[in-house]
């Protein structure tokens, strides 16, 4: 018996040893440039100066959020070193800053760089260098192309996802709609237009009665509105940016036209569109959203938003909670932290990308209840769900289910 027990003992010890060995082998720390036992370096490029400087808030929010994470002890004991540079919304400058981050500062990856032109400019470089270009701050659909650019991933709903949701809504609620579309003649407007047409599918040709585009440089788009009204459409879809969105709302009301009115999320801000256009005439306008509105008091008792407000009060007291970019930056920073938590001690660039493509139903504090982030090796579009909303009184009112606007292929 003793011999047996000692043998059993040695067997157990051996088993335990081998298990311990294999688990240490499994949990062995692995690092690429930019990560160490004490630090994770993250790079970022923002237009702090120049025409798009209003978006610079996103970078400042993320910086503040990572400061909070560091004050709480960092991620698995590692502090985040967030290096953010200004590109002034200029593509050549973005290339210079990206190279500086990768080759001189030696960051582990670049996250939430802003703008379609700047991200287009650095995409090829980042993929050639095999450095993750995570959660780019633009809705251009081309940043979810996992086949050609496996190191680039978007974050917010792609413009095509959003307009597919409008298509789904129209097909269900108003299948015989006569649709007139007004879109901005650039990557944003064209992306939206394509999503809507793809979403309507075979019915697109019969449902769409007018497509009218305008240039960003035009002072007013009123004459275009008069033109599309003449087509006798009963549904008006406005893929416009804030200034033009407000003009369109005003002109449609002025003409006494009462179509089913859909406004893209980009131009649906209460502060910069609905208020200047006039609350009375904006009633009943439809749009879609994926994030909570910091200006909406109905979220005051929401657990996620309470955390968000508490964070703002302590780490970013100067920030305006009504600014959509503030909410945006917070959500992005949380997603980055989630990826780093999932990556654990394996902080190689390949593993960062693997974990970014392995987010499962992750819900940052600032997304609408039910909207979650999910990715896979063949799905590089983190947020694909939105909820329809209708303008009522002085704010947006959500209605209907959360809808996913999946982009195939």
């Amino acid at each position: 018996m003793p011999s047996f027990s000692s043998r059993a003992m040695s067997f157990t010890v051996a088993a335990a040893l081998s298990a311990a060995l294999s688990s240490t082998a499994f949990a062995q720390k692995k690092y690429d440039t930019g990560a160490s036992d004490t630090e994770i370096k993250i790079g970022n490029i923002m237009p702090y100066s120049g025409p798009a400087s209003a978006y610079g808030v996103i970078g400042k929010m993320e910086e503040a959020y990572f400061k909070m994470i560091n004050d709480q002890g960092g991620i698995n004991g590692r502090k985040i070193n967030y290096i953010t540079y200004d590109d002034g919304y200029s593509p050549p400058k973005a290339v210079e800053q990206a190279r500086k981050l990768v080759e001189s500062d030696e960051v582990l990856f670049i996250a939430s760089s802003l703008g379609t032109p700047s991200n287009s400019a650095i995409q090829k470089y980042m993929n050639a260098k095999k450095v993750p270009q995570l959660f780019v701050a633009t809705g251009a659909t081309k940043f979810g192309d996992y086949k050609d650019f496996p190191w680039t991933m978007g974050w917010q709903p792609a413009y095509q996802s959003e307009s597919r949701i409008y298509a789904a809504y129209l097909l269900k609620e108003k299948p015989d709609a006569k649709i007139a579309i007004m879109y901005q003649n650039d990557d944003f407007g064209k992306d939206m237009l394509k999503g809507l047409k793809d979403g309507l599918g075979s019915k697109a040709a019969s449902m769409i009665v007018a497509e009218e585009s305008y240039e960003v440089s035009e002072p007013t788009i009123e004459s275009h509105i008069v033109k599309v009204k003449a087509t006798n459409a009963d549904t008006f879809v406005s893929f416009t940016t804030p200034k033009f969105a407000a003009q369109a709302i005003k002109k449609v009301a002025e003409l006494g036209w009462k179509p089913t009115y859909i406004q893209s999320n980009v131009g649906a801000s209460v502060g910069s569109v609905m208020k200047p256009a006039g609350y009375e005439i904006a009633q009943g306008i439809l749009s879609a959203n994926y994030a909570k509105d910091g200006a909406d008091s109905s979220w005051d008792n929401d657990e996620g938003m309470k955390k968000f407000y508490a964070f703002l009060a302590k780490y970013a007291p100067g920030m305006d909670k009504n600014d959509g970019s503030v909410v945006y930056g917070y959500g992005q920073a949380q997603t980055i932290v989630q990826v780093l938590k999932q990556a654990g001690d394996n902080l190689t660039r390949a593993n960062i990308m693997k974990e970014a493509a392995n987010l499962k139903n992750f819900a940052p504090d600032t997304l609408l209840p039910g909207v979650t982030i999910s990715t896979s090796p063949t799905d590089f579009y983190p947020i694909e769900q939105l909820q329809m909303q209708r303008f009522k009184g002085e704010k947006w009112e959500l209605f209907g289910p959360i809808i996913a606007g999946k982009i195939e292929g």
Partner: protein
Amino acid sequence: MSTVQDVSAAPAVAAVPKKAMALGPMASLIILALLIVTPLFVKNFIIFQMTMWLIYAIAVLALNILTGASGQFSLGQSAFYALGAYTSAILMEHVGVNYALTLPVAGLVCFIAGFLFGLPALRLSGIYLALATFALAVAMPQLLKLGVFEHWTGGVQGLVVTKPDAPEIFASMGLKVSQDMWLYFFTLAVTIVIYLLSVNLLKSRSGRAMMAIRDNEIAASAMGVDVSLYKTLAFGVSAGITGVAGGLGAIAVQFVAPDGYTIQLAIALFLGMVVGGVGWLPGSLAGAAFIVFVPNIAEHISKGLSGAVFGVILIIIIFLLPNGARQLAYGAQSLIGKLRKH
């Protein structure tokens, strides 16, 4: 009426003696040696920055020929830079032309564009010409976005350009030359050629004619200089050289988009010329260094106030060295001269 006329009739820039337009042989060789040796010891990122520095130096040099030699102002250099960049990018990506061959084409296209623009510009002088070229710079990004050209220009999305590899001859010799390194030396060669041609141009009959126009238009025409021809020629040459710089810029950055060629670029080039010393060609190198590196230094000092810090640095430089790097170089020269005598 009279004040305005006085302004436009006065020479636009202080005269620079002809022999002071270039550096002495000794100084030139030292700078050249530094430009050749430094990249061998630094990181690829620094090499990339040095490439951009040389490219901007070419563009500043082009403006220096226009303003420093012929006395005409231009705030529209970004338009020619964009035209050159797009010419190179389109030829490389749509037609499949070798990158090196796209540069002469870009130069030629811009020369013609500059020459044609120079014709109406003849009627304008001084600040009015500056305004006309300003309009050109503002219009350019929007023209590039036009739907008509979208098939070629890629519209707002821009065009991605493939970066050239070093010729295989280096690999067969057992040398490992990175893309950045190769592009740097390629740019350096182009820079040297353009610099030598420019110096020779200014020393030639045409250069003398341009400078005569700069110093006094009426006297020049009395001496038989064809004022309108040389003024437009200066515009054409300047635009052509800027176009070559633009083409190189497109290859180095690997991307062209309308947002890269806004009025900001034109102002940066103008700034580079003033900081380097108007009319002093080697100053282009110093001026370009200013516009490439100083914004980074400013950002390093304060992120939120980078623009203000940049402004303060600029004011200090203009205050201490009103004639730009030229003043510094002359100061150093006379100092060395004195030391030698002792």
